[in-house]
């Protein structure tokens, strides 16, 4: 097998890979992945916010004021996370 044959084979193989990748990006599995990514992004921010509020409440003895405040901050942070992730996804789509 000489070098020329190898390079033509490589070209064909690369073409096939590209086709497969394009097919994959539209499939359900990646959409499921995206949905899960966004949802965990939101939930984790709410959990972290509420936890911080709860700890501060225990520390300053202000139950339940800070937990409530930080819960809403967490929701805001979650929305921010979701917004950023969605923006990144949109950028990726535009680049394609």
């Amino acid at each position, binding site marked *: 097998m000489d070098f020329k044959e190898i390079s033509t084979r490589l070209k064909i193989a690369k073409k096939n890979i590209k086709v497969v990748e394009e097919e994959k990006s539209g499939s359900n*599995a990646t959409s499921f992945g995206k949905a*899960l*990514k966004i949802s965990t992004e939101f939930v984790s921010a709410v*959990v972290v*916010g509420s936890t*911080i509020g709860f700890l501060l409440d225990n520390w300053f003895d202000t139950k339940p004021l800070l937990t409530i405040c930080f819960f809403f*901050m967490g929701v805001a*942070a979650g929305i921010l*996370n979701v917004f*950023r992730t969605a923006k990144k996804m949109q950028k990726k789509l535009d680049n394609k």
Partner: protein
Amino acid sequence: MALNPMHQFTVYKIGPEINIGDINLSFTNASLFMVISSVLILLLLFFGTKKKSLVPSKIQLITEMSYTFIGKMINDTAGSSAKAFFPFVFTLFMFVLFCNMVGMFPYSFTVTSQIIVTFMLASIIFIGVTIIGFIKHGIKYLELFVPKGVPLVLLPIIVVIEIISYLSRPVSLSVRLFANMLAGHTMLKVFGGFVISLGILGGWLPLGFSVALTGLEILVAFLQAYVFAILTCIYLNDALNLHH
């Protein structure tokens, strides 16, 4: 016991109990499967790089493909300045991938379905990235929490929100991997249980589902390792190049 779908996630110790101070350091089935995954990675990389031929053998091809895959991912998401972190991201990706894949074998244990394992990995990334950011930019790294063009009145709230958003990174990173693996394996076991309880007459439908789910689970195992690695690259990018 056989029909309990959560039974597969129990951690039990193998061999003698080792206590150092108050910390229980016994060798468990989780440790065993981590060792198995690491040994498999070492074997793959060892045999893959042993004979360097121009037309690669299958095992060499796998090794080279995983190398270029991660190299390209780092280059695309974090830029060329992140090339120095290639060994870290590569190790992380291979470890998560092999833990997920080893967990797909019947009677094996999925290490990544334990939240403490994934949270530990995510914490290492989180702390490491924060330290790298501070080393690279000094006190200016805190600018990450102060977006540009925000009115002064809103600034205290925005900064707190940004900090919560930053702190939620390791949580979302670890929970995503853990929840995916836990849910997938529980579902497989539930459908497996249906096959047994419905018997030879009705068991065929859940059996078919099981087969389909196994395929999906292998895809998820790969996808989650990929997501874990790519998010590490994105966080590295934030720390190295300092923008959202």
